[in-house]
């Protein structure tokens, strides 16, 4: 970012101005980095055994996962594995979960998870699902909030850098995806220098089934080859539209740092998806061959993967009235719609103001054809015809804005490392607070919905430098909890996060607390390799495959002695946890397993594959401290040379 700053003399001028303002107004600043004031502790203190008020879901960034925190305490409650293998939980290692990480590129054990997004009904988080995008190998995942588990992952065809995603529409009709990196579509072997001729962007609308949540690619809109960065859907009066920011409207293919920072204004693309639905229904979209994976977990808790082969692509020229460009300064990142659905706020990374577009004015400008030319068939609306106002002197590097539902907006400032609060009435800054350091997104519980829950804003910081005890070259990213109930924002708490917290969502705990699943009913276990009692346990040879149908219950495995395995065999341990008690998972690990442990929830079956490479007797044991006799929860498997006469046997009751 420092290079970006040196690009912009204007920005420096503003920086000087901000510094001057801070010098006069910032009384708390002179005494060094902000320390939470003395009553802050009581505002974040959640007594032992008491519950937090909010569940917060933070993206795990390059960890590929989602972390669940309690607010206001900042306590980490769980890390939900999504796009990355997690040996702790057997995610992506057990046979039941491996298909979840399948893609058209094969099995991909990692991704870069960016933007969690709660499902909404009538523009309000409804606590059913959480969506999150994988940026690198373009994917969108859906998590169930009663199980806090990933249920579905859909690869995005024709995608590259799925960044402006998943940002759902008001009733979760769609989650969206957009290419941050335009690419030849469909992919082909062309010189990179032919970017302008050959590269396109794609905006993808993923339909979400109202009851099951099941996702499918409804249609894709082929767009000029820019970088599509972030998005938010319209709400209330602007329901039916989605907004996407773009940068690199210069269409540079090298040194974007400089070459994509030349235009004074880039665009917010306003997409009338209800119009797209009509065009698709009228058969105006072209069915194109494509290859992308769709992975889901069935009722039995078993993942499946299918490869899909076509997608519907809608060209802008075939669907008039589908997309309009709102000129927006400069290289905008976030685009955020206020709770009333009227204001569309863009965060121009290199802009000196925060532009606020008006939805009403936009409709009027479209009606009256107040165009300023077009790009590849997309009308460019006149800036002055759509702008409601500009927030002057907001700071440096505005990125992302959320709303408190009380008439105020809060914008993160990456370069000047602060949060700026401004009024939606007159677009004037009313308060600012430094954050440590280099804030990316910020989040107010429900702050991108029609009814923000308010109370706090969380700064999601990229850099911590000296904020915690140092830990070698790699330091934590962090979140900062800031009280927004008073006239002045007040820092209450810093807490480190898992990976980089790009974005977050939060909702009142009461929405989902009481529907948390505690156990899976053993009587309903539908895993074909599951057993319902110790009597049903057995071992079976099928050529070179050995299947061990095993149970775990405090504090023993059945069977716990297995003999007759030969070198060259592949052993499948199918472990069913017979417990029906809350918070009693059992683990399973066997010496020399080249994958991971299993962590089996009560009533669940999980399978780990083991290929022994030497003769001997090897122990297996429970890895999750389950009871007073946990240390006794162990067994042995004997491996004999290939061709041994020893029959496959076990001490199952059968």
């Amino acid at each position, binding site marked *: 970012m420092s290079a970006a700053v040196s690009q912009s003399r204007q920005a420096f001028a503003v920086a000087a101005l901000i510094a001057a303002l801070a010098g006069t107004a910032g009384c708390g600043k002179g005494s060094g980095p902000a320390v939470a004031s003395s009553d802050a502790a009581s505002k974040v203190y959640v007594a032992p055994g008491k519950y937090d008020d909010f569940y917060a879901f933070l993206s795990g960034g390059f960890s590929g996962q989602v972390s669940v925190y309690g607010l206001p305490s900042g306590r980490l409650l769980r890390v939900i594995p999504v796009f990355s293998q997690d040996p702790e939980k057997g995610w992506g290692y057990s046979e039941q979960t491996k298909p979840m990480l399948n893609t058209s590129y094969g099995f991909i054990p990692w991704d870069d998870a960016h933007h969690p997004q709660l499902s909404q009904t009538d523009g309000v988080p409804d606590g059913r699902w959480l969506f999150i995008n994988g940026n690198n190998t373009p994917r969108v995942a859906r998590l169930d909030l009663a199980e806090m588990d990933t249920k579905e992952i859909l690869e995005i065809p024709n995608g590259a850098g799925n960044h402006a995603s998943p940002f759902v529409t008001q009733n979760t009709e769609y989650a969206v995806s957009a290419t941050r990196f335009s690419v030849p579509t469909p992919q082909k072997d062309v010189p990179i220098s032919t970017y302008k001729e050959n590269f396109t962007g794609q905006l993808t609308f993923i339909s979400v089934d109202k009851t099951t949540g099941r996702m499918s690619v409804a249609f894709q809109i082929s767009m000029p080859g820019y970088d599509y960065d972030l998005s938010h859907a319209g709400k209330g009066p602007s329901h039916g539209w989605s907004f996407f920011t773009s940068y690199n409207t210069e269409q540079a293919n090298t040194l974007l740092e400089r070459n994509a920072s030349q235009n004074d204004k880039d665009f917010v693309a306003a997409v009338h998806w209800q119009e797209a639905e009509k065009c698709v229904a009228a058969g105006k979209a072209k069915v194109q061959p494509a290859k992308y994976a769709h992975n889901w977990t069935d009722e039995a808790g078993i993942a499946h993967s299918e490869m899909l082969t076509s997608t519907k692509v809608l060209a802008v020229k075939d669907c008039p009235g589908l997309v309009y460009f709102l000129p927006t300064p400069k290289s905008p990142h976030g685009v955020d719609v206020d709770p009333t659905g009227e204001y569309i706020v863009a965060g121009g990374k290199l802009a000196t103001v925060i532009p606020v577009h008006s939805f009403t004015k936009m409709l009027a400008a479209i009606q009256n054809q107040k165009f300023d030319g077009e790009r590849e068939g997309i009308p460019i609306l006149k800036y002055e015809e759509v702008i409601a106002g500009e927030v002057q002197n907001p700071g440096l590097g505005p990125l992302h804005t959320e709303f408190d539902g009380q008439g105020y907006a809060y914008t993160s400032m990456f370069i000047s490392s602060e949060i700026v609060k401004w009024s939606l009435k007159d677009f004037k800054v009313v308060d600012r607070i430094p954050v440590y350091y280099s804030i990316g997104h910020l989040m107010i519980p429900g702050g991108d919905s029609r009814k923000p829950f308010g109370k706090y804003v969380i700064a999601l910081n990229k850099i911590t430098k000296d904020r915690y005890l140092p830990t070698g070259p790699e330091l934590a990213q962090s979140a900062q909890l800031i009280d927004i109930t008073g006239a002045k924002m007040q820092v209450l708490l810093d807490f480190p996060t898992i990976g980089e917290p790009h974005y977050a969502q939060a909702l009142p705990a009461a929405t989902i607390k009481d529907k948390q699943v505690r*156990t899976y009913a053993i009587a309903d276990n539908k895993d074909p390799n599951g057993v319902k009692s110790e009597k049903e346990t057995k071992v079976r040879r099928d050529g070179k495959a050995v299947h061990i149908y095993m149970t775990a*219950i*405090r504090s023993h495995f059945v069977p716990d002695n297995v003999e007759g395995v030969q070198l060259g065999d592949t052993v499948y341990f199918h472990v069913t946890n017979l*417990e*029906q*008690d809350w918070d009693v998972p059992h683990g399973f690990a066997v010496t020399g397993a080249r994958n991971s442990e299993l962590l089996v929830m009560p009533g669940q079956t999980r399978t780990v594959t083991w290929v022994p490479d030497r003769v001997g007797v090897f122990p297996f044991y429970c890895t999750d401290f389950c009871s*007073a*006799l946990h240390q006794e929860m162990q067994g042995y498997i004997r491996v004999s040379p290939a061709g041994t006469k020893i029959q496959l046997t076990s001490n199952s009751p059968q």
Partner: protein
Amino acid sequence: MTTSVEPTCCSCCVVKDEPVPAAVEQKAGTPRMSRMSRLVLAAASLALGLLFVLPLWHIGLKAPQYPEGLGLYIAINRIEGAAPQDLNSINGLNHYIGMKVISPDDIPELRYMPVLVMGLIAAGLGVAALGRRRLLYGWISLLAIGMVLGLADFYRWGYQYGHDLDPEAIIKIPGMSYQPPLLGGKALLNFYATSWPASGGWILIAVFVAVAAIAVREHRVASK
């Protein structure tokens, strides 16, 4: 009934009263119970029908690891967990101390008791219809005997489960048995066990008190 100052220890009244009614009957020449007594008896008998739905007894178990507690409900026709998996969980825990698995199928009382209660209901309605005092005394005596025997039987099962332990049990503490309390609370290793009547039990007690009260009243009327 309302101004009674006599002790209301009903079992004694019933026992004492046995020979009395015949004399009263002869003396008063009106062997019939009052209309209100007959209504109360009929209603009380019908109330016993609730015992098919509501549990008689609750055994609760609390431990540090079970902050929400585990529990068993005992009804005339079934034993079930307070939460769907509690019986399973209790059996799972009991295997450490070598207690036998609590399986409702092994308890024949759960098959007899519904028949006995049906009989009591039918008899109660019959007595209410006939309105004979002596039959009323008989019915309340049967109920009292049934309740005492039931409680004794409950104690016997508790004793048996609590003492008949696997000699190879995982946890063996010399002199320790795991009989739940008959009534009240008791510490059993890391668990604190409680034993109290449940909704059906309180209904049964209310039925007994109500019918005993009318029996006393009838007896008073008869002896005047």
